[in-house]
């Protein structure tokens, strides 16, 4: 037993211990209560909050891109579709030595240095199981090369997606447009939530104009992930809603015929259905392959397109501004009739030139020796300039401006693709504003023959011609005819394309100018008399020739580098058949010489095709 301690008081010590034990018990009880209160707070009072956090932790919502709507022509040919695209991706965790694999893959499927450093950078930033794209949009050959060697590259796998493809390539580049990667600028104009999964967006043409219809709605899948972010399973899936298909009013056969007829000369052709405003052909030549832009165009390719003197990226049909020349004469004539400045039978003496009363300056006719006595019909058929110098002088710029404006000059037609130019319809007010100069009487004269300041796009010319063809009815030109929505194709209500008509005090005056336009192609002395030879139908047209030298003074700077050889632009507007017009065209051949030689035969070719029995001929959109 222990040595007896000095003066140990067992009773006192026991009592002390019991008191301390009581304190200890109380403290422990207090501690347990605190723990319980904390757990009640966490598990009962804050339960909902933590449940949310727990869900957020384990569930990730991943967007699924919607397939883009397909674009068809009016005859059902695919103009823009989605094609499976294959990309080669790598994940570090699948390989023991990814760098070695990448090096030997580089010999098989080389990528440039910039791409390689992007690939290696991304690999460093993501987690080991996350995939990084090595090369996007593999060709079939590249796909095959990888497939037979894939056993050597365990880290690499093929992933499929959808990429936009334009099967008809260049032919529709300026009408359908193209898609490209979403840029910073695009982001400003879209709802980013709707585009979370989308990589491409319409950049031009119908692709851009109908972006909201074509895009569709993103789908979502909810996946369960672990703390490292690896996807373990799909919990829930909301499939994407595909974009709506769009049917254009363009006729593929007509489009191809128009391109063929241009024979690779620079120019533009627009064909409209005057009854509906639907665009039947929309050609700007030269064009480019829109497929180049889908995967991100290579710098060299882009520079070649941008710097080409023929300017393939420039949409001449929509944005090209040309002096309309004589193609507006029938409208000036109509203004003369309606304002009773001219009677149809009244003649003007044409000696080959015209001078203003107080001036020595001679405004020349294209026919040096003159046309002699010219009435209205002859003035259009022969395209007599002197008649229109005199008429313009009698009308004055204000009335002429007013009437040409009714046919859409100087304003955008409102076609359903972006980027349209508005041309230029000059007036004294415009000249004061733009040039701080007074309007000279001589400028009225040359405006009367579509020269001087006046500029019009091919689309505007086709639009004005269709108004003439239609007896004043105005239809807004449009490329999109129908939009498929939820499986059903619904035609767009025709009336949305109606505009207030051009009304005449005497509507028989339409016939007067149409008869004159018929004379242009069918008459013995018409400026385009050769082009109608042998036609099975009657049509009406008007030639025009725009002096390139003249345009150099006053066009937007973009156009100045254009023609090296300064031959005239040949223009021709026409519609057919005369009695029930169903097609109106405007043709411009840059530096093609006179309209009658260069442009009129092209319109004839289009009409021939359009009125041929194509149900027999059939069509395969190659």
């Amino acid at each position, binding site marked *: 037993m222990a040595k007896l301690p000095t003066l140990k008081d067992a009773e006192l010590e026991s009592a002390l*211990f019991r008191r301390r*034990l009581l304190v*200890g018990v109380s403290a422990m009880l207090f501690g*347990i209560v605190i*723990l319980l209160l904390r757990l009640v707070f966490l598990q009962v009072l804050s*339960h909902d909050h*933590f449940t949310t956090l727990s869900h957020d932790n384990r569930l990730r919502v991943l967007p699924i891109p919607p397939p883009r709507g397909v674009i068809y022509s009016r005859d059902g040919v695919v103009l823009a579709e989605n094609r499976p695209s294959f990309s080669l991706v790598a994940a570090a965790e699948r390989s023991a030595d990814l760098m070695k694999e990448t090096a030997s893959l580089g010999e098989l499927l080389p990528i440039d240095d910039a791409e390689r450093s992007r690939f290696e950078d991304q690999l460093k930033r993501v987690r080991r199981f996350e995939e990084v794209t090595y090369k996007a949009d593999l060709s079939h050959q590249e796909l095959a090369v990888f497939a037979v060697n894939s056993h050597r590259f365990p880290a690499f796998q093929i992933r499929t997606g959808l990429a936009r493809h334009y099967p008809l390539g260049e032919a529709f580049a300026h009408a359908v447009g193209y898609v490209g990667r979403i840029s910073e600028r695009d982001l400003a104009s879209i709802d980013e939530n709707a585009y979370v999964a989308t990589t491409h967006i319409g950049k031009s043409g119908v692709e851009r104009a109908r972006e909201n219809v074509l895009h569709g709605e993103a789908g979502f899948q909810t996946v369960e992930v672990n703390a490292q972010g690896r996807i373990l399973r799909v919990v829930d899936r909301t499939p994407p809603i595909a974009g709506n298909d769009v049917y254009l009013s363009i006729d593929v056969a007509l489009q191809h015929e128009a391109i063929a007829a241009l024979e690779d000369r620079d120019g533009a052709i627009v064909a409209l259905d005057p009854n509906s405003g639907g665009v039947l052909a929309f050609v700007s030549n030269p064009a480019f392959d829109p497929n180049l832009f889908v995967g991100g165009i290579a710098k060299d390719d882009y520079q070649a397109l941008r710097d080409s003197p023929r300017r393939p990226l420039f949409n001449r049909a929509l944005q090209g501004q040309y002096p309309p020349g004589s193609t507006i004469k029938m409208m000036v004539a109509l203004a003369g009739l309606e304002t009773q400045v001219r009677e149809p039978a009244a003649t003007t003496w044409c000696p080959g030139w015209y001078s203003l009363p107080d001036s020595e300056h001679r405004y020349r006719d294209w026919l040096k020796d003159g046309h002699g006595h010219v009435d209205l019909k002859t003035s259009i058929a022969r395209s007599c300039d002197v008649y229109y110098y005199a008429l313009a002088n009698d009308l004055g710029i204000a009335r002429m401006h007013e009437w040409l404006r009714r046919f859409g000059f100087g304003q955008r037609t409102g076609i359903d693709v972006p980027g349209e130019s508005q041309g230029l319809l000059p007036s004294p007010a415009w000249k004061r504003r733009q040039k701080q100069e007074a309007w000279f009487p001589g400028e009225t004269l040359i405006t009367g023959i579509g020269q001087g300041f006046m500029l019009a796009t091919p689309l505007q010319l086709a639009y004005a011609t269709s108004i003439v063809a239609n007896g004043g009815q105005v239809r807004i030109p449009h490329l999109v005819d129908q939009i498929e929505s939820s499986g059903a194709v619904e035609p767009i209500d025709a009336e949305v394309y109606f505009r207030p008509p051009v009304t005449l005090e005497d509507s028989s005056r339409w016939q007067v100018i149409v008869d004159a336009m018929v004379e242009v192609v069918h008459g013995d002395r018409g400026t385009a008399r050769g082009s109608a030879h042998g036609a099975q139908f009657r049509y009406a047209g008007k030639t025009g020739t725009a002096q390139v030298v003249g345009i150099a003074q006053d066009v937007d700077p973009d156009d100045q580098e254009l023609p090296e050889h300064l031959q005239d632009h040949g223009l021709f507007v026409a519609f057919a058949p005369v009695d029930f017009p169903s097609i109106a065209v405007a043709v411009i051949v840059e530096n093609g010489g006179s309209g009658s030689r260069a442009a009129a035969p092209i319109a004839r070719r289009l009409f021939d095709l359009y009125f041929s029995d194509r149900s027999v001929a059939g069509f395969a959109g190659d």
Partner: protein
Amino acid sequence: MARFHVDLPLLGAVLVVCSLGLVVLFSASDQSADTLTKQSIRMAFGLFVMLVLAQVTPQTIQRWAPGVYVIGIAMLVVVLFFGTGRSAQRWLDAGVVRFQPSEIMKLAVPLTVAAFLCEVRLPPHLRATFIALVIIGIPAALIVKQPDLGTAILVASSGFFVLFFAGVRWRFIRNASIVGLAAAPFAWFLLHDYQRQRILTLFDPTQDPLGAGYHIIQSTIAVGSGGLYGKGWLNGTQSHLEFVPERATDFIFAVYCEEFGLLGVVVLLAAYSLIILRGLVIAANAQEMFGRLIAASLVATFFVYIFVNIGMVSGQLPVVGIPLPLISYGGTSMVTIMAGFGILMSINTHRRFISSI
């Protein structure tokens, strides 16, 4: 000695907690039979140690305590120079088994302090108190140096509890507390960076949600999202998707809370309370001062385990490496705790019918 010394109420409560532990460990280890087997073997070994110690008389334990203490100190010094371990030197490789000498001190310190105090008049006056503090301080300092703050806290507090139950004067406790608080800013500079970070993180875990705060945030989410009834056994998303760190060891309580909810927590705390109550009864009924002090100190230390671990998992205390007793996966502390219960049983069952004064 014909009689087999065992305390059935204590054994029963321990077995209840062990069973709950195996159930939740199965889930926390992603249903690893291997883990479960290893843990069961440790439990069996722990129970064996417990029952062996229950057969030893308290007097024997009291006699051997200072010797064990000295050996323990020696081993701690050896560990400091030759120990192994990934980030801290805690382990001693004894050829066949590897063990942490610091675990031995969890028992040796209170036993030695108690044995010493039984030799002096109680309440201990200044000199005795000072000697007791030295007995506590040497091993605690050596363990902090490893560094193993959690174990050091447990070792130190087990010694302090003996002093407390021996009746050290309140005045002394108060003064010591004031000195301690005044020294705290200096102690701050002695802490390792990671230890400082843990304390800072406690006050604002969101300041570094993916770094040091991550453990606390994720375990709190696990606890809170368990709710009243829990997500169900094996269904804890926080745990099974690896958001909860150390989910089989120090943070196993988060798994338990997530899967069994507040209801399960109440059951577990009730089982723990049974052990504590039984220990307190043993302490209160002990015949000799040594037994009283040891029983009370062991129970209080057991409570500290629970309080610190749960406080840490539920985001109230800094993250220190203290396991949830009898439940966390891992060997040494389980055996130490069981050994402590063996001593409790020994105190309760070796009664002398004739008081020897």
